[in-house]
Structures are given as structure tokens and as C-alpha cells.
């Protein structure tokens, strides 16, 4: 049993480390050339039709209103409701939406369970009534969220698998890994359902296990199916960051750092400094027309002989 507890600690630790390193992997790349794509959500008065500050004359003399609220709304609709998929690929949305919502609710259910455990551990005896009310709320909320998550994830995943198998357009692109990802989630859901029993209708085993993890109490939980389920969850936490399922985090960058990144460059700005830095990067591309200098700054200003001789 101790091994299982240790595996869970390890998987949570590695999960967090790998997610952070993936985020840093994207965040530490150098500033890139602009590659914005419209509509840009923060264009307060223009995002409805996809306009930008370039629609104004002398735009560099005017303050451009950026709406962070508009960005938030677009991201919210996109992340929670998969609005883009709804509009552009409805057939996929019927499965993808419950699948994603199911996963979000699973995360929410875990969070609620952790809150229950924290509440349980931190409760003072003189707060009995308040604690009882909070516990009740968490209890019913966890059940509602947890069961909804299970149903949505199960049917969403099943639908996505069936669609991948039956729809011709996926056929040549499917790889074993695509199916492993989906089947893994399906098995997790099924094993979770199997842990439920008349004595465990409210995820009580999970709460006990979490509490044990928090208190370093490695008591045996005598339900083999639950132990199998926890083993699978732990392996999934190790596996998840190595897959394309990390698009969850990449999406922040594709939207905020690429599609919506429209900051103009002004003299003396931080951006200008970053550009100066980038122009000092080395260039090792080997096509003859490139090899005119060692840095980007040199290569962009020194022309190849056939061009410079002509001038």
C-alpha cells in the first residue's frame, strides 16, 4: 500500500514539474515577428467584425483601447463551451463538448474533495455548526459535480473514439497514441464507476485516500478495484504531460502570444530592446544568399555579392 501512496506522490510531483516545464518551454522562446490573426479579442470597439487599430490614420499617435474583459469573455466561451468547434465542426462538438466539460468537472470534483479534506482537518470544535453546513454543501456539491463529470466524460470519450474509428476523414491520421489517450480516459472513467458501491456512493474512498495523502497516513484501503483505479490515475498523471493533451496550456500562448499579440514597436520601448537583442542572434542557415554575416543584424543589412555588385 505504501508503494501506491508513494506512486501517487511521485506522479503528482512529476505532473506539476512537467506542466511547469512545458509552460516554460513556450514562455522562454524569443520574441517572434508579429503573426496576429483577426478578430483580435481585445480590440474593444472593433472585435465584433475583426477590425484593428490599423483602420485609423496616424494610429501611432492615438491610444488604443484594449479590453481585457473582451479577451476574458472570448477565452471563457472558447474554453468552457468550445465555441469555435460549435461553429466550425458541429459533428465533433457533440462529443468534444461533453468530453471537455466532463474533464473540467472532474477537476472541479477533485478540488471539492480536497476542500472537504482541508475542512475536515482544520475544523475547530467551537465551529461545529458552521463546519457542518460547509461539509453538507461540499458533500452534495461533490456528488453532483462528480456524477455529472463521470457521465459526460464517459459518453464524450466513447463518442470521440467511435467518431475516430468510423469517420473516414480521421482514418489516415489516426495513430495508436490517439486511441491510447482516449481509451486511457475511458478506462479511468469506467474504473471510477466500478469503485462506487452502496457504501461508497459519495466518493468516500477518494476522500479517505486524499486525507491519508495529506496526513501521511498510509492505511490500507481494502477495495482492490479502488487500488487499481488509483494506480491508473497515478500513471495517467505521469503520462498526460507527455501528450498532445497539453494543448490545454498551449492554448494560452497560441491566443495571447500569437493570434492576439499586436503590440506595436516604438522607439525606446521594451520591445525595441528585445528586437536589438534578437538582431544579435547568430545565423547558421547555409543557403548561399544568406551567408553574408554572422548575426541577424549583419545578414539583413549585408547583401550577397550578386546583389551588392549590381548596385
Amino acid at each position, binding site marked *: 500500500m505504501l508503494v501506491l501512496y508513494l506512486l501517487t506522490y511521485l506522479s503528482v510531483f512529476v505532473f506539476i514539474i512537467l506542466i511547469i516545464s512545458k509552460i516554460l518551454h513556450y514562455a522562454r522562446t524569443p520574441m517572434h515577428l508579429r503573426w496576429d490573426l483577426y478578430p483580435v479579442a481585445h480590440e474593444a470597439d472593433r472585435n465584433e467584425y475583426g477590425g484593428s487599430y490599423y483602420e485609423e490614420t496616424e494610429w501611432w499617435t492615438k491610444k488604443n483601447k484594449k479590453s481585457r474583459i473582451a479577451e476574458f469573455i472570448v477565452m471563457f466561451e472558447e474554453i468552457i463551451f468550445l465555441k469555435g468547434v460549435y461553429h466550425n*465542426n458541429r459533428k465533433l462538438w457533440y462529443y468534444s463538448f461533453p468530453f471537455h466539460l466532463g474533464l473540467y468537472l472532474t477537476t472541479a470534483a477533485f478540488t471539492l474533495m480536497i476542500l472537504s479534506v482541508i475542512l475536515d482537518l482544520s475544523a475547530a470544535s467551537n465551529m461545529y455548526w458552521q463546519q457542518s453546513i460547509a461539509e453538507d454543501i461540499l458533500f452534495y456539491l461533490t456528488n453532483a459535480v462528480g456524477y455529472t463529470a463521470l457521465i459526460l466524460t464517459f459518453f464524450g470519450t466513447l463518442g470521440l473514439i467511435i467518431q475516430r474509428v468510423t469517420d473516414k476523414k480521421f482514418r489516415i491520421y489516426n495513430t495508436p497514441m490517439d486511441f491510447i489517450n482516449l481509451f486511457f480516459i475511458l478506462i479511468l472513467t469506467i474504473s471510477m464507476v466500478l469503485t462506487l458501491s452502496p457504501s461508497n456512493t459519495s466518493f468516500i474512498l477518494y476522500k479517505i485516500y486524499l486525507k491519508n495523502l495529506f496526513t501521511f497516513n498510509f492505511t490500507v484501503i481494502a477495495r482492490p478495484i479502488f487500488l487499481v483505479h488509483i494506480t491508473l490515475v497515478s500513471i495517467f498523471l505521469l503520462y498526460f504531460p507527455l501528450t498532445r493533451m497539453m494543448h490545454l496550456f498551449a492554448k494560452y500562448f497560441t491566443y495571447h502570444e500569437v493570434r492576439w499579440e499586436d503590440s506595436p514597436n516604438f522607439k525606446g520601448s521594451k520591445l525595441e530592446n528585445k528586437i536589438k537583442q534578437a538582431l544579435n*542572434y547568430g545565423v547558421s542557415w547555409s543557403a548561399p544568399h544568406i551567408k553574408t554575416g554572422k548575426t541577424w543584424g549583419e545578414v539583413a543589412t549585408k547583401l550577397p555579392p550578386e546583389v551588392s555588385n549590381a548596385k
Partner: protein
Amino acid sequence: MLNRAIDTNLNESTNTNKKKISSIKDFTRQDGQLTFLNPENYMKLPYPYDNWVDPPIKELTADQKERLEHSLDGLSAIAIPVPATDAEKEVKVARFLSGLKKLFNKEDNWTFIQPLLLSMENCMKCQTCSDECPIYISSGREEIYRPIFRGEILRRIINKYLKPGGKLYNKFTGSDIELNWDTVARLAELAYRCTMCRRCAQACPIGVDNGLITREIRKLFSQELELAPEELHNSGTVKQMKTGSSTGTNPTAMLDIIDFIEEDLRDLYNINIKMPIDKKGADILLIHNFGEYLSWPENIMAFAIIFEKAGINWTLSSEMGGYDSVNYGLFYDDVQLARVALEHIGIAKKLGVRKIVMGECGHAHKALMPIADRILVGDNIIPRESAFPVLEEIVFSGKIKFDPKKNNFPVTLHDPCNTARSMGIVEPQRKIMRYLCPEFVEMEPHGVNNYCCGGGSGFAIFQGKNFPDWRNSISFRMKFKQILEAFQENLDPSIHKYVCAPCSNCKGAFRDGLTYYNAFEKCGIIYGGLVELIVNAMVDLEKPFIEWELK
């Protein structure tokens, strides 16, 4: 004759049905041409083209087939020479891999590494992008033209050849493919079957950009293997830096053309304008795509008329680097992009102008305004703005009198991808048209959701071998469908109709495409710029500015 040609093509297609792509690995086959296009499968067009059958795409000549790689779909956009020996092929494959590594090197590819990594690592292959791609749809859903196809090939090569993992990992990720010269040559050609319009990126729920992947593949081939289409590189950016224009027009010839244009203004419209040339300290340096001077001089005239009537303090440049806004580096090569942009900036600095205004050219807008913005430092940061808001300001300033009734014909507006989807310039041109064109009708979809003209990313200027056939019948097809649908109520050829395409490259695609479909004779459709419509509506003008012929 036509029927026989179609039969031949169908036979070829039947032969190759056996070889239909059933796996990504098929891309690495070494048994000749991978895909045979069949006009019967192309997207159907609306009335009066509902029975239209496209002739098959012209085959390359026997000599071309022997000399040039064409094993993707029988076309040759880049004219890749067939390597003479296996050893030569191996060298090229090795160079491809070395270039691929550089794409993921922070210094070599600081310009685009972040968006590239994000797009390469996060595609869920959900196919949401497929239905957004006009080329994929128009071709009759040819698998190789699916937006994710080229990215998926690249992804699997990267998994196998650049990432540690071994056989099992490759099996799991479907990356157990062999990299050979045929694959490399096909991938290079496939990068020139996408106009980089970025509709796919716009639809992607994650933000993966297959248009960017296309550009990065083009860049790899140009910056590492010196492989790029003649029209973009030697006769494009290189010629532009050597002579002053990608058309080969030098400064002396440019001044002669200006003389002709002034003369035409006098003779045709009784307007005396002395074009301001190299005027130091002007408020505006106006830079046109030089294609306008040669193919559509009326666009140059119209700008001059409007600016002069509005009392703008402006100038053109006659110096190398100052009279052609073209920057084909945008389509294939970061270094060439930077060099050309710096030449444009250099001229503006030399003249001491307050700002540069981009004429009606979409890619020139994007190259010098947002993209080049991140290579400029110090005094090179000179303000650049689009002609569209400048024109909007003039039209609504009251400085010029208009009679919209002069534009008494149906007009629709094409949004160039570079100015609309990539820059968000949507409304200024529409405000002008709603005011000056009483019969203005939108295409659907439009604005930032528009379809490409089919000439994007350099395709408009590819005139070699059989590429124009492909462009006219496939990449222009969706735009043509939109035009026909916009004018569906007025398709009688006696009713003249105008497609406003405020972009030189788009106009190039329209010229060839509308000619291919015989659209003027059949439906009375012509195309032109925005300024021509503005001038046509001017009260002062003695005769109509727009001539009803397909130029």
C-alpha cells in the same frame, strides 16, 4: 478535343485509384506521381457555370518531366531539378534535416519559433480546419491538400529523426516513416499548394496555424537548400534588390513610366498633374506595388488625382528600393523579407518623410507594417499606414465632391487576406463603398472571414509550366463561386459588374481567373481597385474613369 483530354485524364485517374492515399506513409512512395487531379471531382460552380467542365491541367512536357520533380501532383511550382545520382539525393535529404533542426533552434529561427512550436506540438487532428480551406474544397477534397496534411508529414519526420524515442515511440506516434528524396521533394512542392490565407488557423480551436507551417517549410527550403520558386527568389526579391523592382524596372525606366502616366492623365481625362517625385520632407511617401504601373496604371492615376484634389503633401520615390512595395520575402524567406523591408525604410529615411503609406497591395501592407515592425530599431522605426483609412478620411472630408450615381452598377468587394485577416483592416474600404457605390453587395463570407483570391502567397505571379492551370481551376475557384453568388441576381452580361479587389496580387489572380472562365463575355464581370471607384464617382471628372473591359 476537350472530351478526349478529359477521357485521358479520367483514365489516368482510374489507373491511380489503386494507389489512392490510404496512409501517411504513402507520401514516401518512390513509384512516381502520388496524386492525379480529376476535373470531374472539382467543386461545382453555380449558374451559369453549373455545367462547366474544366479542361485537365496541362501535363508537363517530356523534357520537363525528365528534368523537374513533379511526383506530388504532376505540377512543378519550384522547378526542383531531379538529382542526377543517389548520392546527390542523400546529400539533399541530409541538408533538409539540417534545415529542419534550424527551424527549431532559438537563434536561427527566433522570428517564428514560438508559433511554430505551438502549431507543431498541439494539433489534435480534429479536422475542423479542413472545411475552411478553399483549395481542399475546390479540388474535390484531395487528401494531399487537406490543411493538416503537410504539417502531419513534417510532424512525423520530426518525431522520427529529431526526437529521441526509438522504434516503439515511432510506432505509437505513427512516425515509422522513411525519409527519402521523393518525400523531401514532394513536401517542398506541397508547401506551394497553400496560399497561406490562414482561414484554417482562424477556425482551429487550439490556434494551430497550418499556414504558418507552410511558410516555415518554404523557409527551410529557401534558407538551407536555396530552393524557392524562380518568381519569388531570383526574379523576385533578388531582382528587386538588384534593379529596384521585381519587374526588373530600373529607376530611369520608372521615371519614363511616370511621364507616360502623366501624359495619359492629360490626354484621356484632361487632368494636369505633375507627379511629386523624391520630394524631400513630404508628409507621405506613397509606395505602390510596381505591377500597378505596368498592368493597371489607372490605379496610379487615381491615387494621384485623389491626393492632389485633397491637397495632400505626398511623394513617390524614383530611387532603388523606393518605388516597388513588393516584398516576396514574406512568402518564403525571413532574410529576404528583412532586406527588402530595410530598403523601403531606407528610402523613407533619406527623403525625410513623416510616414509611409502603402498603396493597394495586401502583402506589401503586411510585410512592411506588422511583420517588419519587429526588425526595426532606432531611426528605422518610421510610421507606416494603410491607404484605406487615408482614403476614407479624404472621401468623407468634403474636399472632393462625389456623385455616387456615377457608380450605377453592381459592385462587390474582395478582402485581401493580408489586410483583412492578418491586419484587421475591414471597415474603411467598406465605408467608402457603402457611400460611393449604391449597388454595393457583400460577398459571403467577407471581411476577416473572406476567401483568398487564389493568388495568395505568390501564386498570382507564378506563370511557369502548368501552375496557372491549377491556380485558375482550383485555387481561384472558391473566390469565383463567391463572385457569382454575389451577383446571382444580375448575371446577364449586358449588366456590367465590378469586383473591387484592392490588392495588386489579388488583381493578378482575378485577371487570369476571370479570363479563364470567360467571365466578362459570359457574365459582364470585371475587376479593379478601390481608388478607381472613388475617382469614377468624382463630380469633376468629365468622362467615366472605369473602362468596361477585362484587362
